């Protein structure tokens, strides 16, 4: 037992004194008995603990002195090691800090683990929003929740406080904020009766809005604001960094179901879904239990309303699970790439240390001759590599902190977290762990190799052939393989991005200016005043020089709102599966297709003559026509949607409403003058698109703003951008990811080239004599070149084949990001492999030149 305790000492110490210490302990034991024996054990335990620590500490001091000497002798070496380690650790830590932020760290709310979102679930959609009556029933009947509320997104015009602005935010039931658990910095939450009909309007502001618009003054409480022309009293300000339900939310209003629609909350429409349920689980209730309870309730209600709620069930999710699988895949790719960089950095360092350890063989041999055991020498080398790694780790942390903003684009905006991750204990722990592992990873092999069989034979020929070189070769192979993985994966993702960018959106994005002018609020509740507004604005805009055409639409494709999906029923057709009969609904002014360059295949555009008193008309997309009237002429056919019957007057090309990578439902376009009064506000045309003849469409923006301001001074104009920007935003996340990934690939590429260079330089200098002999015996420069470069290419061939298979594996993992590109895409692989060959060539160039310049006479004289 005592002997076991002695294992706390370093092995070298134990080897010397173990048996003696045991003997002493045995003598002591003989002298004691009973309680004295127990006391002896306790004493001995602390004695060993204390002294072993001291012995370790002494050795550390010794190693530090050696290390200091090493540093003074070759600072360049130490700097290189620290820089490479810093790059590897920095890349990995930065990638981790972002992954931690998005996936691992609990959301910044008290009891975040009990917060869930609740959705309707249908055969094809796992997350559909809730209808108000379903929300109310689920809330009343479920027992799993401590509190249950609902919210929906909101954007509202703030007028009368300087420039009119469009604010993003949410309308919440009074349960939501207390359930989230974050208190306002000043003021209060919504009171329970403030989300009832007829209550006075109230609003809670975000910290940033409070600072920007109201100078952070407490006097804002009680102030009356005009939001969408409705007076609301400011009752509170949320703390800085509070983000719910999404980042950048600026205002929160109480949710009043009746206020949203003229029909009021009593509207029993169970298919009108627009709420997100949010609940806090009772302590001890699992997410699964809550889910089964909700599903039971949903099944009961489905029996009550078999038609409206066919196949509608319920699903609750951890609030954190809002991260989409694509975001997850992006982050995983990033993490994998950073690990590749770390691996390359480590192998590079191992090689560097190995070379160095071999150069230090004599020093080590001397120390070994003076009685230092192998374990002692290994320990010294490891201490050195750990110290270098720690310096690298400090540098890496610095790099990580500086680089993290680059990654911010990868944080989904719909997560209730701030854009930029702050370092927390997880990141620090991770960085420290990576540092230690790095130190061990690049230190262990060289330490073991360098100390194994160190000998003192002066002039012994150094490291020709032999195991050490094979090991170094293997390390270089690992580097090449890892860099091939990165290069090919980056190549695949670049190709995928090109492919997505090459996707036909269904419209021509060039030379189109777009603006968002939310024509909402009580004054624009009815259609006639709105029509007057559109007519005035469009006429003035069309009169501007350089404008080819202009039109209004509910919401532009690939814009901020991509939903607006309605069920379609066609006269005389019995829907076999109602969920397959969905289409997106938009209201447009004439000229919309012309402005966006959407081809009109059949019939006519909506016209100024399509007014509310004339028959309701619709233009549908190709896929819409093909879905309901395959092989027939769709013109004049009738269908119902949104509680009205429409007849088809035209067929246009399909448009990727939901984005370049997503499936989009077929489209129907209704006439802007046929919007019923008090129709759901989001459907009101509010996006303006203007096609210009040439030049940058954005140059038109000031003139257009002036026109809108003269038509409606209090109307905010937002999202002023070209249509091409809108389309480019589709691939912005990918671009951000590619920048990071590409950066990693470049680092990997450089490190691997340096690795090859280092290995070959070492080989060449060790083989100078051999080369000299060969040349003296008649070998040509070509032979020598072949010898050196041939070695490099052998390593490259092995590394590339390993790396290519690994890249194929990673391609399979990333398939969800490849946009249908095959993970064994020839172009990406060819490019990656060619680049690796170039890298090998570049890395072997200088050493090869040195080799052919060897002067046989000098080399032989040295022998």
């Amino acid at each position, binding site marked *: 037992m005592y002997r076991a305790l002695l294992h706390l000492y370093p092995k070298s*110490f134990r080897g010397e004194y173990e048996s003696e210490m045991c003997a*002493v302990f045995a003598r002591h034991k003989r002298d004691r008995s009973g309680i004295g024996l127990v006391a002896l054990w306790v004493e001995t335990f602390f004695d060993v603990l204390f002294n072993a620590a001291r012995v370790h500490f*002494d050795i550390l001091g010794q190693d530090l002195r050696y290390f200091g000497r090493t540093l003074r002798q070759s600072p360049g070496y130490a700097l290189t090691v620290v820089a490479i380690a810093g790059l590897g650790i920095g890349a990995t830590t930065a990638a981790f800090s972002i992954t931690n932020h998005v996936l691992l760290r609990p959301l910044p709310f008290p009891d975040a683990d009990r917060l869930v979102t609740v959705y309707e679930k249908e055969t094809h959609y796992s997350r559909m929003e809730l209808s108000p009556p379903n929300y109310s029933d689920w809330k009343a009947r479920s027992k799993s929740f401590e509190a249950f509320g609902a919210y929906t997104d909101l954007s509202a015009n703030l007028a009368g406080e300087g420039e009119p602005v469009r604010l993003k935010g949410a309308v919440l039931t009074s349960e939501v904020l207390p359930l989230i658990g974050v208190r306002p910095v000043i003021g209060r939450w919504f009171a329970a009766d403030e989300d009832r009909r007829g209550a006075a309007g109230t609003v809670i502001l975000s910290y940033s809005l409070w600072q920007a618009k109201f100078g952070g003054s407490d006097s804002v409480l009680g102030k009356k604001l005009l939001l969408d022309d409705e007076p609301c009293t400011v009752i509170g300000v949320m703390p800085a960094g509070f983000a719910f339900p999404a980042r950048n939310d600026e205002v929160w209003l109480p949710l009043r179901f009746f206020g949203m629609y003229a029909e009021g909350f009593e509207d029993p429409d169970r298919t009108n879904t627009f709420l997100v349920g949010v609940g806090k689980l009772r302590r001890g209730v699992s997410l699964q239990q809550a889910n089964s309870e909700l599903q039971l309730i949903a099944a009961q209600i489905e029996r009550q309303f078999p038609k409206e709620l066919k196949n509608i069930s319920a699903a609750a999710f951890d609030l954190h699970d809002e991260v989409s699988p694509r975001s997850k895949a992006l982050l995983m790719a990033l993490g994998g790439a950073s690990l590749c960089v770390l691996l390359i950095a480590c192998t590079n360092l191992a090689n560097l240390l190995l070379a160095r350890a071999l150069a230090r063989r004599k020093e080590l041999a001397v120390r070994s001759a003076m009685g230092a055991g192998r374990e002692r020498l290994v320990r010294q080398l490891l201490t050195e590599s750990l110290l270098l790694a720690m310096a690298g780790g400090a540098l890496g942390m610095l790099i990580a902190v500086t680089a993290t903003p680059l990654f911010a684009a990868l944080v989904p905006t719909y997560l209730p977290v701030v854009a930029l991750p702050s370092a927390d204990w997880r990141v620090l722990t991770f960085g420290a762990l990576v540092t230690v592992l790095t130190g061990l990873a690049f230190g262990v092999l060289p330490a073991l190799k360098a100390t194994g069989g160190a000998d003192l034979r002066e002039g012994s020929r150094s490291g020709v052939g032999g195991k050490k070189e094979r090991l170094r070769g293997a390390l270089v192979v690992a580097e090449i393989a890892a860099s091939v993985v990165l290069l090919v994966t980056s190549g695949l993702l670049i190709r995928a991005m090109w492919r997505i960018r090459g996707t036909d959106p269904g419209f021509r994005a060039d030379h189109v200016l777009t603006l968002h002018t939310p024509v909402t609020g009580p004054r624009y509740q009815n259609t006639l005043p709105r029509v007057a507004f559109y007519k005035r604005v469009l006429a003035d805009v069309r009169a501007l020089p350089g404008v080819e055409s202009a039109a209004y639409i509910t919401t532009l494709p690939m814009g901020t709102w991509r939903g607006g999906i309605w069920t379609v029923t066609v006269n005389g057709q019995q829907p076999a599966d109602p969920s397959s009969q969905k289409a997106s609904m938009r209201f447009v002014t004439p000229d919309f297709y012309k402005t966006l360059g959407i081809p009109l295949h059949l019939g006519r555009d909506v016209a100024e003559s399509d007014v509310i008193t004339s028959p309701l008309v619709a233009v549908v997309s190709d896929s819409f026509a093909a879905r309901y009237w395959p092989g027939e002429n769709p013109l004049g056919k009738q269908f119902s949607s949104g509680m009205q019957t429409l007849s088809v007057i035209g067929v246009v090309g399909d448009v990727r409403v939901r984005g370049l990578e997503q499936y989009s439902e077929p489209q129907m376009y209704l006439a802007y003058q046929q919007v019923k009064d008090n129709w759901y506000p989001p459907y009101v045309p509010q996006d303006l698109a203007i096609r210009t003849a040439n030049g940058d469409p954005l140059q038109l923006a000031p003139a257009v703003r002036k026109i809108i301001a003269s038509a409606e001074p209090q109307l905010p104009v937002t999202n002023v951008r070209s249509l091409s920007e809108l389309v480019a935003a589709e691939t912005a996340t990918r671009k951000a990811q590619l920048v990071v990934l590409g950066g990693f690939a470049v680092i990997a590429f450089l490190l691997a080239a340096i690795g090859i260079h280092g290995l070959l330089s070492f080989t060449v200098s060790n083989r100078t004599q051999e080369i000299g002999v060969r040349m003296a015996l008649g070998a040509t420069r070509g032979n020598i070149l072949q010898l050196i470069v041939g070695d490099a290419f052998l390593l490259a061939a092995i590394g590339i084949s390993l790396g290519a298979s690994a890249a194929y594996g990673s391609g399979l993992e990333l398939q969800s990001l490849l946009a249908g590109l095959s993970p064994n895409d020839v172009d990406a692989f060819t490019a990656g492999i060619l680049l690796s060959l170039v890298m090998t060539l570049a890395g072997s160039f200088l050493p090869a030149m040195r080799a052919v310049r060897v002067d046989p006479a000098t080399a032989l004289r040295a022998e």
Partner: protein
Amino acid sequence: MKPDSFLPLPAATFHILMAVADEDRHGYAIIQDVSASTNGELKLSAGTLYRSIQRMLEQGLLVETKDRPAPEEDDERRRYYRITALGRTVAKAEAQRLTQLVRLARKSGFAAGRA
């Protein structure tokens, strides 16, 4: 290394040097000797003893001796330690330092006796 650079000596080191001043001793004998000469007030633990010995060997204050006592008193496992010339010098220097210190203490009345 200069003898002065070792001063002040850790108590354990000084006691060990005194214990091996006139004969080579093995570890346990050192513990016993130190204990006897301090009337049991200082009982070196095995850990402290061997850590000190290791360091003193490195510093050259002690050497391990190959001379063994008569076989009937010997134990295979034991290792004997002998003071070196440097060890002796250092111990003397420490003793002198302490004497000096005591002299000063007397002068200021902290210790009994004449200055």
